[in-house]
């Protein structure tokens, strides 16, 4: 489950707002948008690393949620449900971009290269992070994440930003637990590789 969704005392509960939305009350939906837009936008931003596209995708997610609300049975929290919609919208967008970008993200190399027991920080002559040397750590991290494949970026955001457990990640993607672990492992190895200079210079 994504980070806590407990409402503040005195706040109208999500479930009440959802019921009002299901009766066609767009003002109730506006309250839900206000409540969750910052978190949905953070997710789309971390996934896309582009303000404009992240803004559009977050908006698209809310529109899709509005369309799907009549079928929402409140069998999970509204935010969990909304997050999955936003996640799917963003992931689909990234996949399409990857196809159009003709192999922009190439994690397969890393996955094969990084074997169990391999050097924790693989060394290579053509390190992709040479341009990041002067950037702040936050910028370097964001740039590194932008170089991950959609699959790897996805698990990093679900785990490190949303703090989801493996089973929740598996249900959100959806995929097997083994795939979650595998992707998390290789995504982190790839990030280590991309941030190699940062960590070496810092030690």
């Amino acid at each position, binding site marked *: 489950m994504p*980070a806590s969704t407990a409402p503040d005392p005195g706040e109208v509960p999500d479930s009440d707002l959802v019921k009002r939305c299901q009766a066609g009350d*767009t*003002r109730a*939906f*506006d309250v839900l*948008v*206000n409540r969750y*837009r*910052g*978190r949905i*936008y*953070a997710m789309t*931003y*971390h996934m896309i690393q582009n*303000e404009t596209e992240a*803004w559009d995708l*977050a*908006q698209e997610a*809310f*529109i899709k949620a*509005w*369309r799907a609300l009549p079928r929402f049975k409140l069998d999970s929290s509204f935010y969990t449900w909304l997050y999955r919609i936003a996640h799917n919208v963003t992931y689909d967008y990234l996949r399409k971009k990857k196809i159009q970008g003709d192999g922009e993200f190439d994690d397969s190399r890393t*996955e094969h290269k990084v074997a*169990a*027991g391999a050097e*924790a*920080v693989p060394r290579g002559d053509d390190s992709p992070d040479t341009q990041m040397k002067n950037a702040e*750590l*936050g910028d370097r*991290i*964001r740039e590194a*994440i932008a170089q991950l494949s959609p699959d790897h970026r996805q698990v*990093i*955001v679900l*785990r*490190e*930003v*949303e*703090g989801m*457990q*493996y089973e929740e990640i598996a249900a959100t993607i959806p995929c097997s637990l*083994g795939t979650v*672990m*595998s992707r*998390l*492992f*290789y995504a*982190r190895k790839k*990030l*280590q590789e991309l*941030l190699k200079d940062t*960590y070496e210079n810092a030690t």
Partner: protein
Amino acid sequence: MKTPPEDHDLIRWLDGEMNAAERERFTSRLDADPALKAEADLMQRLSTDLRANLPAEMPVPFGDFFNSQIQVRIAQEELSENAGSTKQASWLDWFRLPGFATISTVVAAVIVAGVMILQQPPTAASVVLSTYAPSQGVQVSSYHSTDAHATVLMLTGLEDVPADRKIVGYHIERSETDQAVAATTLYGERGEVVLVVAKDARNQPRLLAAANSRG
């Protein structure tokens, strides 16, 4: 791709997915294996840095606009759905007409009128009843923004005003109309004449700025 179980152990340990017994066993392994310990430390540090630098919530740029655009799109979708269902009903009516089967070809002409019937905003609000844009390529849409308590008429497809053009604004406080010649004189804050509005032979407005006006 299959990941070796020891790598699974490493990240399960890192992410707190181990039970107490598994955790104890893995900690012993870390103590005995400096390379594994170094790997674990690095991964832990990366994880900490990621969490510190990737906030779970971020301010949405132009948040009010974000919300109002969602409301606009919802309203537009509902309008088009209603229009769609009306259109479908009228086509079904055609099929019900006696002798329809003998019609071999149906030529449908769709005339797009620039008149839009809009969703009813709150009663105290201004309302746009109809719009018409004479120029080709200019589209008009209209909606009520409850956030801004305003009615919005949005024109798209307009030619940009050249960047080097100086837009001159006036401050007009009152007007006088000369009914004999159908011209209106517009006065500024200090009672000075700013502008005269009249019509030319083609009934188009002609604006003549006073020499001392900002225009």
